[in-house]
């Protein structure tokens, strides 16, 4: 996908086991505009 001549973006997700009783999930989107 081309969003423009200076723009990039990133979509990521992850799951993390913090300890046996605690689990974290996250979804992150990042966009960068360079000039």
């Amino acid at each position, binding site marked *: *996908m*081309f*969003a*423009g*001549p*200076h*723009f*990039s*973006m*990133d*979509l*990521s*997700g*992850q*799951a*993390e*086991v*913090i300890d*046996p*009783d*605690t*689990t*974290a*999930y*996250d*979804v*992150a*989107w*990042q*966009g*960068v*505009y*360079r*000039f």
Partner: protein
Amino acid sequence: MYKLVTLAVAAGALLGASGWWMPAAAQSAEDEVAKQTARQISDAISKRVGEDVGVVYTAPGQGMVTESGNFLNSAWGTLTYNRVDFDGGTFGGSDGVNIFLGTVGYDHRFDNFIPGISVTGAHAKVDQVSGSSDGATVSPYLGYIINDWFFVNALVGVSLANSDIGGADSDSTGVFTEEDANVVWHDGNWLATGKAGHRYRHSRDHEDGFGSTDSEPTRCWRAARSVTGSTRYCPMSAPSTNTISTSTRRTMISSI
């Protein structure tokens, strides 16, 4: 009569316990939010700085490449949804916390140095407990790219937060620092990233009716890794801590 006295004592004990639980749970929630916020800000900054490591912008099918050094200024933003689940009622009987983060940042590249600053807003809600927590964090950062596969970065975060969780109203100020060493390796359509670092975090909470408390300063060493497949050559960075599964999809643009 004995039954009435027993009930009264039990009710008093329950009220006393709940009065103690509320601020304790609120403080735990705030602490968890602060911890996750620091981690997410750190990951967003690592990801941002990592983009300038050995990156060549490629137009798919055209094979045109341009060094990323042509663009010295970067304005960036990150939106994150974070869910923390607690099993077995380990968090005051709550199932978990939902945290929403929005970060905007700016940096400028001076040769191998990338100094920048970011501002993050955070909103959090705890399951089965009324109220929420809101906070803001300012994080100056500095990245230094050593070569095409290795860079280091450091950041400082200063935060202000207010929470009204379970009827316990509190304000907090916090600070954290982090220093990371990052490795980026790519081969064909595959990319592997890894990072190791150290984080220090400290906060002071002021709970209405309970005074101020300083959190125990926490220090931790982190190690993270990520392996990602890509549909085309596209160096990227997606560091994470203790990650058991990661999927990353990225679109990059061409520079014609």
